[in-house]
């Protein structure tokens, strides 16, 4: 339901355009448009091989973006997610290869997830207890954890991971099911539980939430734990897909994660965001990234284009915050 009033002086086209711009399906519409526009020029865009490849990019990106969405709803940000991906990747890989004694894959996965959650907890603890800005805390942990991962492996990749582990990242039905399960669970949590409402309240007005009895610190802490957990899950998939425990895994997708979340419509200012929106944003970025790669643009051109698109999304976000109020 459109919340903005329509003056009599506006033409119908302008009204339609305006409600489209402010609709939550704008990004989806743009994605479809982009796909349709680029398809004639981009070799191999529509092939099943390419689509499978794109999924390989999309699924882990969406998983991390889910965690990022939760953090952003509380008004924070987690810059350390890619370092968590890297560190959990190498720790898990070390554990599962002959180096670490060849522990079974299931243990390896559990350790990775626990580590991710633990690192998220560390972020959350510092942010809530010491009341430091999320940006600085997660920036610091990003640098620290990244450096630590490189030191642990002496910059070397780890190979020889067990087949059962690789299946998690390579067998599409499994990867897809995991991702869908996470997305649905997060969506339901946000929309249908007390915890979800509390997260939104924290982002909208932490002071009023605190006075109203909302456990603000606990919810903020939990958001960062969730973010770390999601990063670890994405790491499981990426490590499996690339068959490598790598200390620089995920390094290049930090911008993509944040960009996708913001493009989708989750506000950097907090208090607003939906899993569905994040999915649209991830889809948008996937099509963009995929098409740009297929067009054989140089890496620099790709990052320039992505940067411009994300800047545009941030501007739209700010404009939307100023003129459209109360989208729930």
């Amino acid at each position, binding site marked *: 339901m459109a919340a903005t009033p329509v003056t009599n002086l506006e033409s119908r086209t302008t009204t339609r355009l305006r409600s489209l711009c402010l609709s939550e399906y704008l990004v989806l519409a743009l994605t479809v448009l982009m796909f349709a526009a680029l398809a004639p020029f981009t070799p191999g865009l529509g092939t099943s091989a390419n689509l499978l490849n794109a999924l390989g990019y999309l699924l882990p990106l969406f998983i991390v973006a889910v965690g990022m969405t939760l953090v952003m709803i509380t008004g924070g940000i987690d810059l350390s997610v890619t370092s968590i991906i890297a560190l959990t990747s190498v720790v898990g890989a070390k554990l599962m290869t002959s180096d670490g004694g060849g522990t079974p894959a299931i243990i390896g996965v559990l350790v990775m997830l626990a580590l991710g959650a633990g690192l998220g907890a560390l972020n959350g603890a510092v942010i809530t207890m010491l009341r430091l800005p999320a940006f600085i805390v997660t920036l610091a942990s990003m640098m620290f954890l990244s450096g630590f991962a490189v030191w642990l492996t002496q910059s070397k990749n780890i190979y020889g991971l067990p087949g059962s582990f690789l299946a998690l990242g390579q067998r599409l039905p499994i990867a897809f099911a995991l991702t869908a399960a996470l997305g649905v669970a997060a969506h339901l949590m946000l929309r249908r539980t007390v915890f979800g409402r509390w997260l939104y*309240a924290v982002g909208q007005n932490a002071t009023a939430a605190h006075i109203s009895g909302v456990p603000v610190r606990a919810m903020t802490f939990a958001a960062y734990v969730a973010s770390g957990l999601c990063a670890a899950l994405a790491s499981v998939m990426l490590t499996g897909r690339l068959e490598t425990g790598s200390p620089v895994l995920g390094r290049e997708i930090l911008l993509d994660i944040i960009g996708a979340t913001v493009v989708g419509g989750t506000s950097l200012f907090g208090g607003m965001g939906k899993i569905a929106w994040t999915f649209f944003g991830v889809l948008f970025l996937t099509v963009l990234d995929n098409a740009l790669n297929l067009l054989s643009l140089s890496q620099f051109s790709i990052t320039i284009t992505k940067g411009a698109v994300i800047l545009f999304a941030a501007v739209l976000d700010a404009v939307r915050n100023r003129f459209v*109020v109360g989208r729930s």
Partner: protein
Amino acid sequence: MTTNKEQRTANSELLSLRGIEKAFFGIKVLKGVSFSVPAGGMVGLVGENGAGKSTLVNILGGNLQPEAGTLRFAGADYAPQNPQDAARRGIAFIHQELNLFPNLSIAENIFLTRFPRAGTTPFIHRGEMHERAAELLRKVGLEIPSHRLVKTLSAGERQLVEIAKALSIEARLIIFDEPTTSLSERETTRLFALIARLRARGLAMIYISHTLADVFRLCDDIVVLRDGEVVGSGATKTFTTEKLVSLMVGRTMNQLFPERRAEAFGSEEGAPILEVRDVSQSGVAENISFSLHRGEVLGLSGLMGAGRSELARILFGLDPRERGEVRLAGEVLHHLSPPNLIERGVAFLTENRRSEGLCLDAAVADNLALVTLPQHGRTPLRWLLRDSLQAAVTRIRSVVQLDSKTSDTQPVRTLSGGNQQKVVLGKWLLSKPKVLILDEPTRGIDVGAKFEIYRLIHGLADQGVGVLVISSELEELMGLCDRILVMRSGCLVDDLPRVQFDRERILAAALGTAKEVKS
């Protein structure tokens, strides 16, 4: 056509206000204020909280523009659009909250907007700056080097820096707003000596203060403001303290109140539901002890800064306390925090509903549900039972009589002040509180909505809820409450049951002009 006499009077008036009106959202705050300050004169401006003094000062300072009326300063029309206009014309303000930058030096603060330049270059001529600052400091009698950082200065010293700043713009009129509230005895004496010296040099002043004794001592004329109108003005010698207080307080009730049974609780009062003993926090509250009974409407009166809101925040666990005990229904609460207190049936409406009571961009229904959300969550996943939640929201909407034209999904930001306050009240009422603490519940609300809120408060008390109402409007408390406590400078100084309600007595206790009377 002005006569010669009027012309002469007009010429000797430095500042004159005629018919100044100002309204906020349709509520009139100044209803035609007229008075004048003669050249070299000292006018004391007195009035209760909410009388309109701050609004008047803001209009004189260019922060607000009046809807009607004229201002004249030094023989010319005066219509400042911003503080720079006021400064340019030679009017300086010494505010209660000093506007200095603690991280900068004294000289930098004084010349912040007018740094002396080195010739035509953009570089600051620091030597000249410090020289001129030193001279100004000499004039105000502050013997401190001008490169000292302001954060090292005491409140009194900072105030003298502000006055030095006023002299640096060659002010002809200085307006003091509650200048002595943060000063020690010695600093006050020093300030008064400086004021005398400045007056001898021909500066005119407006002195706003609750310390009536000082007003009597310093001022030639007094203007009394009440409810946005000048209710008395004239030479100081024509006033007595009693007359001043009675003018400030007034005689007419300008709000309707629901009938309150006079012996609401006499001998068979309800049992105490909230007992506060010796609660103290340095700088804020000192040995506060009182009891709130079931079914009682207890008012907390006092001037701004007396510590009433601060006390409420301490009781609700938002601010720390050094000592003291709080008992709820006889049970001692060791750890005060919002979740703890909400669980035990305490509710707290803060005085800043927009910043602390509401999520402005969220919907009405979401705001109403916020406190009691867990009650509608089925464990262990806290799955929301949307039907019961919606039912509760609908029910409370009609209890608080929220405007039926506002929809549940409307963002709360778009509601009027009265409806916003009803949303906050509804949010808390859903938690079925046993104790309700209301801080300025009718601030910025029109008369009709006020009455509805009063009715709600009485209804709650009739059901056995203990209500603590903090308000700066004395009429409101006197119409609403069974008992009134008065706070001054962090201490409880008076306690009156309804049969002994007396405006003069309450105001005197709040101002500290009468000997303390404990009932």
